[in-house]
């Protein structure tokens, strides 16, 4: 292990290279340009390939091609670019190809702005592209987690033959923090993926392999849809990840992910110091959503969801709570951060203080 000062966007590249990702295709868009620039510099040194694609659409389709050969590959973008990639993401999910996609979210809709946001939650977790598919979505809240979750994302993508998303935001991408990084790939549990006998590499010594997403017969496509669904249920069973902070005796739960969760955590501490029993649920996997974190609500009077959007994860929280206790919302958008004092005020409102 080495301790280095690193920018969030660079940590994505470092994490990817650490687990043997050798192919990156991307298109410039703020606030994630450092990822492509890092890869352009570092991948050739690692014997890999960087291509600045002519478009987001081309980039994701290059990912499709490289993933089909069995090699680890990634792309990255921000909201507007991710929208363009959605066609390709649907195909990659349909073809059950592993890859990693980082979305360093900016404000939307439309061109929005280049300031941080969490408003692509729906797009990442509810589909985004056409058809019935799911993406594994990991939400880091520090530069260390960006490095770690990127490595985990490659592992999960390979394990389930499914695209995995790192859903960060402009703050996380641009901030610098101290990160513990691995000195060699040999130390990394996630560095080696499974065998990929399905890869299209030329059929020497075997029957031909086909990567295809067209299933014209309704029974064929239905069988494929349910096969995918079984996989998604298996992922939901195995891979839900969540951090619970001071929740054991909590009467008020704050639910928040990514950078917003760091502010919410501070608000929880402030509430505790005032004698309010607050706790934080921080989903790590946004899909599969860690609904099990809401199983025991016996001591809970109310829940506050804090996001940098107008209420998206809120829907998953309400589904998980299923009406057992009131679920309120506090959000900031446009590049604004929630202030921990304002979150504290919202906590107090729920507590009737």
């Amino acid at each position, binding site marked *: 292990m080495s301790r280095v000062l690193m920018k969030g966007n660079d940590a994505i590249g470092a994490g990817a290279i650490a687990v043997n990702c050798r192919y990156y295709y991307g298109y410039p868009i703020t606030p994630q340009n450092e990822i492509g620039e890092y890869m352009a510099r570092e991948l050739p040194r690692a014997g890999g390939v960087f291509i600045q694609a002519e478009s987001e659409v081309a980039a994701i389709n290059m990912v499709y091609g490289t993933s*089909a050969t069995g090699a680890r590959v990634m792309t990255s973008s921000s909201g507007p670019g991710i929208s363009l990639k959605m066609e390709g993401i649907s195909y990659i999910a349909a073809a059950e190809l592993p890859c990693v996609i980082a979305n360093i979210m900016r404000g939307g809709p439309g061109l929005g702005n280049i300031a941080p946001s969490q408003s692509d939650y729906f797009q990442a977790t509810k589909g985004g592209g056409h058809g019935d598919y799911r993406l594994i979505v990991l939400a880091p809240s520090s530069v260390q987690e960006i490095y770690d979750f990127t490595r985990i994302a490659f592992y999960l993508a390979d394990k389930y033959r499914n695209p995995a998303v790192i859903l960060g935001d402009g703050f996380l991408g641009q901030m610098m923090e101290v990160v513990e990084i691995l000195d060699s790939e040999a130390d990394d549990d996630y560095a080696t993926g499974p065998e990929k006998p399905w890869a299209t590499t030329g059929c020497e010594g075997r029957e*031909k392999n086909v990567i295809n997403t067209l299933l014209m017969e309704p029974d064929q496509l239905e069988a494929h849809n349910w096969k995918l669904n079984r996989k998604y249920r298996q992922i939901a069973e195995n891979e839900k990840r969540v951090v619970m902070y001071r929740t054991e005796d909590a009467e008020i739960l704050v639910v928040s992910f990514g950078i917003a969760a760091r502010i919410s955590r501070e608000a929880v501490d402030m509430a505790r110091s005032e004698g309010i029993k607050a706790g934080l649920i921080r989903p790590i996997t946004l899909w599969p959503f860690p609904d099990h974190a809401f199983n025991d609500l016996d001591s809970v009077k109310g829940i506050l969801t804090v996001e940098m959007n107008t209420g998206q994860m809120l829907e998953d929280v309400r589904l998980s709570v299923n009406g057992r206790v009131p679920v309120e919302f506090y959000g900031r958008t446009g590049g604004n951060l929630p202030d921990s004092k304002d979150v504290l005020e919202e906590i107090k409102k729920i507590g009737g203080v």
Partner: protein
Amino acid sequence: MSTVLKKTRSLEDAALHYCPGCSHGVVHRLVGEAIDEMDLREQTVGIAPVGCSVFLDAYFDFDIIQAAHGRAPAVATGVKRALPDRFVFTYQGDGDLASIGMGELVHAAARGERITIIFINNTNYGMTGGQMAPTTLENQVTTTTPEGREARLSGYPIRVPELLCSLQGAVYLSRVSVHNPKNINKAKKSIKKAFQVQRDGLGFSLVEILSVCPTNWRMNPVQSIQWLEENMIEVYPLGELKTVQGVS
């Protein structure tokens, strides 16, 4: 007894779904023969488009990836960069390649990707029922140009190899036709040359193949061959638009 003709190893023993008189069958055979003769089958990854030839994997006995509409050159790029010693080609129609996939095409050529593109020009969208393509001739009737393609409203036919000629990365660009045996033989030579350009690592290669679409042209196969000869070749002249020395 000597063998005069044998089955093409790279082709599956499958009945084609293509319409009677369609050129796809002939071109599939030519591609298969070229791959066999150059001993490439086990090194090949073919990229299928969206369009009539989307079912490429049913007809070729080598690895196939089916791409989204127009994206085959980007997918091929991803394959070739990861596996530079394999043989990678795309097979695309005119709607797929020259309309929705123009960006991917031009930039794969500009980068000089070591891939080969087999480009079927039959002047219309076949699979969706005969709509106007970028290659539709002026005054040609299609389902979306019911009075004939009027340039003032719908623009002019795109000549793809000519368009790509200025790009340094595109090193072999040709246009052939498969409307009679003489041209079929020439087409095969050109396909093999394009493949050799890739094997030699020289850059991007593309062969446009003038093809017939009797069903959507509302003609019988014989009429469609005559129509191609009398109308298409004038707009799409045959020959090597750009070539390299030392490759045959």
